[in-house]
């Protein structure tokens, strides 16, 4: 599946718009909800839409076509590469982020659909140098090998603990089942989630 074209940074994006599509861009850049525009968002195919996302407590603006997924907006536009792309089909969980506190797969949603939502990525978990209890538990329990699935596992675990689905090993396995680990670190991941749940409840 070819991805929509990416632009390395805002500067490049602007340059492209300026040099090639000035007229189109000026009509296509739509005001977002936060700016108080009254009419609902609308864009034509190929239009670039200005989307304000709230990511890890900071307001971030991205100019994207409607077809850009939240995952690609985070990674390619905002440089937040902690969120991983595994399958891009909702099957592996590597792209898990929290939206308004709930875990979702960011490869299966569009950035334009998430205006005004509060998004938390793995970069937003630690408090300065103090790791989130789930992050610390993953390190204590050596709950990864290659790390490809880890940020998704951690984001999913944060939600799993918050949802209270950590009563037993079987319950943790069921409620963490949307996150696959090709290195098969499941034993240690389950231990880390159980430990983090105890830590958080304390």
């Amino acid at each position, binding site marked *: 599946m070819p991805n929509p074209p990416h632009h390395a940074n805002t500067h490049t994006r602007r340059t492209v718009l300026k040099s090639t599509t000035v007229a189109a861009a000026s009509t296509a850049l739509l005001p977002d909800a936060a700016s108080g525009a009254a009419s609902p*968002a609308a*864009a034509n*195919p190929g239009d670039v839409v200005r989307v304000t996302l709230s990511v890890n407590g900071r307001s971030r603006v991205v100019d994207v*076509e*409607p077809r850009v997924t939240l995952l690609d907006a985070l990674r390619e536009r905002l440089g937040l590469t902690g969120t991983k792309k595994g399958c891009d089909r*909702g099957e592996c969980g590597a792209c898990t982020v929290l939206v308004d506190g709930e875990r979702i*797969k960011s490869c*299966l*949603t569009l950035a334009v659909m998430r205006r005004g939502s509060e998004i938390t990525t793995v970069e937003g978990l630690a408090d300065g140098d103090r790791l989130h209890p789930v992050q610390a538990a993953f390190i204590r329990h050596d709950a990864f090998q290659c790390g490809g699935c880890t940020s998704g596992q951690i984001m999913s675990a944060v939600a799993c603990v918050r949802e209270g689905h950590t009563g037993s090993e079987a319950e943790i396995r069921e409620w963490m089942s*949307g996150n696959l680990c090709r290195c098969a670190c499941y034993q240690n991941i389950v231990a880390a989630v159980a430990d983090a749940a105890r830590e958080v409840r304390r």
Partner: protein
Amino acid sequence: MKAFGYTQARDAADAVSLAHRTPGAGFIAGGTDLLNLMKDGVQRHDHLIDVNRLDLAAVTGTATGLHIGGLARMRQVAEHPAVRKGFPVLAQALLASASPQVRNMATIGGNLLQRTRCGYFRDTASACNKRAPGSGCPALAGWNRGHAVLGGSEHCIATHPSDLAVALTALDATVHVLGPGGPRRIPIGEFHLRPGDTPNVDTALRPAELITAVEVPNSRTATGSRYLKLRDRATFEFAVVSAAAALHLDGRTVRDVRLAFGGIATTPWRSPDAEAALRGRSLTVETISEAGRALVRDAVPRHDNGFKVELVQRALAELLNGMGGRR
């Protein structure tokens, strides 16, 4: 993914009217099936109408039953106290579906409209009568382990993958839709269509129609309902075979029963014959196996899926035994 336009609909009427007048438009709810299909070029909309802001997400227990908004999320429905108490098969089917992340995103309307997981359908390099009418069905003579033994035609044997739809079929639900011509109701048994000569048409939904709600009537069978899903791995997988039973038992006598099945048919499969083999009779090993035989009487097994004929009968027996058949 091909480029597409995007509009956020304000309300249901706005969404329907946008869909009606915008060429190549489709609704996007959770996006969990649609975006996969769009990425793979299986579905190619020119414009997506975002229905997520519509006020259609409430789940309410009413005097006569359950009202589920078309935009309610799978998780929300599974957790709802009225669902867990009065319609356990629904909560069980939802919790056995997909993953926690997908259930946070996916809606009830979108779930009913999810497309088949048939590998030929999802691979644009393959022929497929459902995706490209007239191109042929490679599953008939090809790899058909996941395919249907009931309800197929010479043009298509793809199964419908929804667990929710199987549960709703056992609960006699009604789908409420709003279209350019106004609202109408579709009984769940008439919602999903067998492939026949037009496998490209999955459902009775007409162009630009929006699912606004699903209504489920209260009943004694609903209260005593259960779901059993058999998968190739323990969890996070579609059904190989599934069974939903809604049962009203009086001692060992079956007062009333509704049986629906997934994984074996081209649509969520209600079996009146299997129900008739049980209704008014005692729930015993004999009547249960009679029901199982009635269920598969017209089965047409293919090269790789013949095992389902046996498996679904065992699933039914397992489910009913757990509901009082052996006591």
